[in-house]
């Protein structure tokens, strides 16, 4: 590898190193929780980006995997599994669910695929509401604490680690044959097939990886909140936000979802404090503006402009 290729790696490692030091400066639980959410949605956005950005399949049902990860922690723990085992079982369950959902939903293309993924997540949400014996229904269920002492810091560090792992996975994938195959699927499925690539399997594999990361994110979130209900961890807002942070930052770019999560979460938090109830409206308008004027996302637009300039 040339030294030019090492610069982004050094920047990324350095960046994450700095992120880990943040709790030395920031002590308040509120602020650490905001930073936790930024890192969490960066990870969820990166997970979504594999399927929605690189493979170009607009999944709007990632809440299903988030919810499965969130509920697996208390459910498997109650059945006697240690916390770490419950976390792994949550990932396994989410991957199994992704296998089923993907097999069915990938038969559909474009908006129909998106609708099918929404439907699956909604079915899970409604099921969770009605399966009181397992999930506690709308009353909710208590989630075991992942960290006994100093939880705000540890949750923040865990979310940063999850983001780092998701980014590293993205980089490895994008630089591999699998990454090229994913992008080929996005660009033209017939051409992909003519190159001897099993397009259906390629999409499914990305979906499974995406589900595993999303489930871990769900488990972290659930444990932080200590008590969860279906309308919270299986909400369509989770799916939408996973997609939106990636699109805002730049779908199909490596760091786009991180940029998107930082901007969106920060903006949302500020607007919530400044405008109270009106923040939703401003948030909506902002999204429309981005979609209209920066369709490639922030990172996508910047790199396109930079490339044009260097080509001159």
């Amino acid at each position: 590898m040339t030294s030019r290729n090492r610069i982004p790696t050094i920047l990324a490692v350095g960046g994450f190193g700095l992120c880990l030091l943040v709790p030395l400066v920031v002590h308040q639980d509120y602020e650490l929780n905001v930073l936790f959410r930024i890192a969490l949605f960066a990870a969820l956005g990166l997970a979504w980006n594999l399927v929605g950005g690189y493979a170009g399949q607009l999944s709007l049902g990632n809440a299903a995997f988030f919810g499965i990860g969130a509920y697996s922690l208390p459910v498997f723990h109650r059945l006697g599994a240690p916390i770490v085992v419950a976390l792994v079982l949550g990932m396994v369950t989410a991957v199994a669910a992704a296998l089923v959902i993907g097999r069915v939903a990938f038969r559909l293309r474009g908006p129909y695929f998106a609708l099918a993924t929404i439907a699956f997540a909604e079915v899970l949400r409604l099921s969770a509401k009605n399966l009181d014996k397992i999930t506690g229904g709308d009353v909710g269920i208590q989630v075991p604490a992942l960290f006994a002492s100093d939880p705000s810091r540890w949750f923040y560090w865990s979310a940063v680690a999850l983001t780092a792992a998701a980014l590293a996975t993205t980089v490895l994938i994008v630089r591999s044959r699998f990454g090229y195959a994913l992008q080929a699927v996005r660009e033209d499925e017939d051409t992909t097939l003519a190159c001897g690539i099993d397009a259906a399997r390629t999409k499914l594999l990305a979906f499974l990886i995406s589900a595993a990361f999303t489930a871990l994110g769900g488990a972290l979130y659930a444990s932080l909140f200590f008590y969860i209900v279906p309308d919270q961890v299986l909400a369509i807002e989770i799916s939408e936000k996973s997609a939106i942070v990636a699109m805002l930052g730049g779908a199909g770019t490596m760091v786009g979802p991180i940029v998107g999560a930082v901007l969106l979460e920060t903006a949302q938090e500020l607007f919530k404090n400044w405008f109270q109830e009106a923040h939703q409206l401003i948030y909506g308008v902002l999204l429309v503006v981005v979609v209209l004027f920066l369709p490639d996302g922030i990172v996508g637009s910047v790199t396109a402009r930079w490339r044009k300039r260097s080509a001159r």
Partner: protein
Amino acid sequence: MTKMTAILKVEHVSKRFGGLRAVNDVSFSVQDGEMLFIVGPNGAGKTTLFNLITGFQQPDQGVIEFAGRPLAGTPPHRVARLGIGRTFQIVKPLRNLTVRENVMLGAFLHTRKVAEAADRAREVLEFLQMQAVSEQPANGLPLPTLKRLEIARALATRPKLILLDEVVAGLPTSEALALAALLQRLPEWGVTAVAGVEHVMQVVMKVAHRVVVLDHGALIAEGAPADVVRRPEVIEAYLGAKYKQVTG
């Protein structure tokens, strides 16, 4: 000379779309070492035939065999892995990827390694004289370049048989002939047989060893190019019945 073997056999193949018989009881074969061209007016079923061979569509009736193996039910990516490369008449580039990356996707059929795929792509692009555009995104390239890209991508999969769907159509004559000369060199790349669909008779006459003529989904003539173009039924299919008397 030893007896030639058929690398591709198409036997009594039919395909209907509703009431339209797109391909009607067509039989022909492509021999090892042969360049066969399929000609015929628009809508004669040429592209459908290619789609049937490559698994993008399944025939209603008939058998297609590649290297002695029946292809029935084989999905397109498996057909490609067996060694049939194809181009698309309506070009299908991976628009947001560079030309080199487009060709690399074909090369990935034989290697997992990105560097090896890139090397292979470079070789193929050099052969097709496309080095100048190799780092440009496919998006925005002119049609003749995209047609060449179709060939490059297919060639990178190292096919034994390559199906070329109107790759010279729409090119100026000089460029069409230059490309035809390159097509004649495909055996250097391990391509043992070529089946082309083409309108440009000048090119067909130059490179084809044998020609089959399709009209309204049916095979109406087969033979050496110079011979086939003189046949009355071929002239009728192309120009209409009234020219048959004059020329035939």
